[in-house]
């Protein structure tokens, strides 16, 4: 039986040049294909959730629709507004796409395999700070959006770009903090090492109980996982956080003045970023390319050879499904609630969680067990006391209708009687009765009957 071979950092940087190029091209094509299929997937899933058939014209299951749209878009007129800053307007769409693709280069897709006699990892490259590279790329991508909005020389795109930058930097803070817990647990900032660290659970003892901590950080570090997922949606400007392109307020946000291939590049960058973020979530929290737990128990070879490609693609698709699901389900947030969520909820929770995690780790390693139990008990008691004694702000009870009526100044308009019961209109009743067949099975109207 072949055992999965985890690459170490020393395994990178030894590929011959043709292998590097092959890998780069393969990942690039992977990104392109995932974009094309991602758009199709999104439109199909959203359609299904809205109980309509969705794409079904171009190609089998409408698979070629994205390609057709892309080709059509390429042959549309390329408009450059008169007030635009020509150079920046021209280059802004490229920035977002470049950043999206560059981030894909450090995603680990599998273990060591042999390609034409060369042992190499299924990963373009890995460096000790590769998570930071991804992070930097997602941060740089905002330049494309904000510059595109600014260079358009018109109001809606500028607002969209500004919103986008404020939104991205707000959520980048939460995202960056949630990675800290992963670094702390894995002891490394390289993607392949983080995947390797999620190989198996660590034994922990808790008040004398011996347990095995789960390997996946999604379970072990669940607050970080949730915050990272939320922040990832915010970073990629996806619904319900798609405020920069809120069509009800800003037309199309930063993309308003763009047309033709430039517009398509912006669209593409969004989907590439989505794929990249899904891959990042998979790598950091969902065990990377490793097969999920039940499969490995009856099939030991699942983590070796080329099979991991299947697992990671499946995980990415599942994450993409979550993105689409959110979009189909949730309404867009208001901007102030959105910013409040980022700064007032996610940030403090994250900081406290990091400190708690660090405290737990320090307790496990540097403190002997009796004093550890004492400290734990003390912490629990303190938390309970704090919860009990927390000064709860009691809102004054809302004034009743009678009080409101009494508080009106003298000489106000007369009020109708408060216990006035409006009898149901006989005409409305007839209309409902006539329309009855239309909503068979719906809840009965009018409780008064």
């Amino acid at each position, binding site marked *: 039986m072949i055992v999965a071979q985890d690459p170490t950092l020393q395994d990178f*940087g030894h590929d011959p040049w043709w292998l590097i190029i092959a890998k780069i091209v393969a990942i690039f094509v992977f990104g392109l294909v995932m974009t094309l299929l991602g758009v199709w997937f999104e439109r199909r899933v959203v359609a299904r959730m809205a109980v309509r058939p969705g794409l079904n014209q171009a190609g089998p299951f409408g698979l070629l629709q994205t390609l057709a749209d892309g080709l059509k878009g390429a042959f549309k007129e390329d408009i450059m507004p008169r007030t635009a800053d020509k150079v920046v307007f021209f280059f802004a769409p490229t920035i977002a796409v470049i950043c999206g693709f560059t981030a894909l280069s450090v995603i680990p897709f599998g273990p060591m395999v042999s390609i034409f006699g060369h042992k190499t990892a299924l990963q373009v*490259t890995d460096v000790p700070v590769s998570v930071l590279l991804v992070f930097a790329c997602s941060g740089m991508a905002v330049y494309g959006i904000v510059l595109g909005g600014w260079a358009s*020389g018109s109001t809606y795109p500028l607002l969209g770009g500004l919103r986008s930058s404020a939104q991205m*930097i707000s959520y980048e803070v939460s995202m960056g903090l949630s990675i800290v817990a992963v670094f*702390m647990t894995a002891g490394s900032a390289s993607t392949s090492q983080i995947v390797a660290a999620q190989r198996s659970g660590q034994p922990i003892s808790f008040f004398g109980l011996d347990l095995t901590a789960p390997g996946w950080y999604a379970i072990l570090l669940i607050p970080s996982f949730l915050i990272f997922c939320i922040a990832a949606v915010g970073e990629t400007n996806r619904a319900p956080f798609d405020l920069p392109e809120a069509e009800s307020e800003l037309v199309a946000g930063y993309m308003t003045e763009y047309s033709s291939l430039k517009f398509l590049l912006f669209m593409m960058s969004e989907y590439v970023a989505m794929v990249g973020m899904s891959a990042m979530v998979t790598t950091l929290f969902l065990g990377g390319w490793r097969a999920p737990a039940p499969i490995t128990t009856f099939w030991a070879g699942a983590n070796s050879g080329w099979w991991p490609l299947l697992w990671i693609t499946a995980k990415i698709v599942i994450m993409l499904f979550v993105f689409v699901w959110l979009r189909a389900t949730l309404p867009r947030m208001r901007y102030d609630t959105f910013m409040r969520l980022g700064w007032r909820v996610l940030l403090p929770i994250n900081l406290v969680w990091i400190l708690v995690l660090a405290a737990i780790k320090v307790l496990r390693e540097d403190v002997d067990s009796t004093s550890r139990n004492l400290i734990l008990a003390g912490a629990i008691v303190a938390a309970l006391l704090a919860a009990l004694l927390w000064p709860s702000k009691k809102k004054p009870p809302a004034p009743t209708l009678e009080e409101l009526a009494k508080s009106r100044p003298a000489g106000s308009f007369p009020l109708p009687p408060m216990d006035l019961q409006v009898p149901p209109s006989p005409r409305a009743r007839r209309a409902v009765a006539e329309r009855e067949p239309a909503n068979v099975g719906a809840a009965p109207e009018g409780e008064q009957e």
Partner: protein
Amino acid sequence: MSLSPYVPIIGMFALAAGFAVMSVAIAPFLGPRRFNKAKLAAYECGIEPSPEPIGGGRVPVKFYLTAMLFIVFDIEIIFLYPWAVSFDSLGLFGFVEMLLFIGTVFIAYAYVWRRGGLDWD
């Protein structure tokens, strides 16, 4: 032959850049060109277009505030990363130091929160 592990990142960057720049560069040649004055004006619906003033005009101050808060916390995060990676060898001392550091930044955070710096009207 062994290249630095950073080289493939540059390769990926170059490929993506080539693709993207090619796309925006050929766009004007693929599509038609039909001149129309309204088409080149800034997009606004219904009302007289009010183009962005020269030099960008005024931007609400809250964006600057958000940017400054971001810098504060981003720098905090930058300090947290190396600490997190070498957490095991730093141990209790590192924990206490980081507690102090985060605590200090948290005070500033509490101040900003209470004084309305996080309100987005």
